[in-house]
């Protein structure tokens, strides 16, 4: 399941909804990404722009690929858009499997692929200035390690 939303998410409630009434899940991994002040207390806010339509398609593709690679009982990606502040949640990835390794690996894979393929762009506002965050080369390398 994937969701793109401006509202915050509640990790506990999402996990509960995913696992409720199921007895086949033995391992559940959650990853939460937060808005980080990358500039020592000067980042006032962050604007998350995205490509409506493609974002949902790309997240669904990434999720489907994770489900092909690992035996997952459930998976969830939530990504926020719009104006966020340092400390706010940005992204939630949840993976559930019978055993831990698949859940750990799939969560890591989902984040690595999301970072290089999902059409989101961050702009940081610092005081009266703002700038687009540059893509990191290390994110490309992290995603490439899953290519077989």
């Amino acid at each position, binding site marked *: 399941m994937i969701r793109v939303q401006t509202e915050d998410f509640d990790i506990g409630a999402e996990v509960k909804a995913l696992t409720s009434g199921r007895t086949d899940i033995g391992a559940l991994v959650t990853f939460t990404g937060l808005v980080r002040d990358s500039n020592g207390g000067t980042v006032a806010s962050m604007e*998350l722009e*995205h*490509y409506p*339509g493609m974002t949902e398609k790309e997240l669904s593709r990434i999720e489907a690929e994770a489900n092909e690679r690992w035996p997952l009982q459930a998976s969830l990606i939530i990504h926020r858009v719009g104006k966020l502040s340092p400390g706010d949640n*940005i992204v939630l990835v949840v993976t559930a499997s019978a055993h831990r390794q698949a859940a750990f690996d799939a969560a890591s894979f989902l984040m690595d692929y*999301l970072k290089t*393929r999902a*059409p989101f762009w*961050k702009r940081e506002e610092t005081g009266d200035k703002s700038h687009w965050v540059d*893509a990191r080369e290390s994110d490309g390398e992290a995603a490439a390690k899953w290519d077989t």
Partner: protein
Amino acid sequence: MPDVSSKQMKLLYFAWVRERVGCGAEDVELPEGVATVSDVVGWLKGRGPGFAEAFARPELVRAAVDKVHVKPAASIDGAREIAFFPPVTGG
């Protein structure tokens, strides 16, 4: 009646590409001979200073055809929508 040989296309721009170009979306008619994503970029560069600036270093701009990531050499045959944007920075 629109000319059936012309290519009607929706172009979308995001993040700093959008800011430099000066708009987020437009409908264009691509000239004959524009067959690939990189041809579109070449044509866009000649449309004004904002476009020239946005595509000054084409290697910094990514593209999607009908909401799927593509390389510059990709064909635009049959495409309805082409988007241009910087490398993504979500997550």
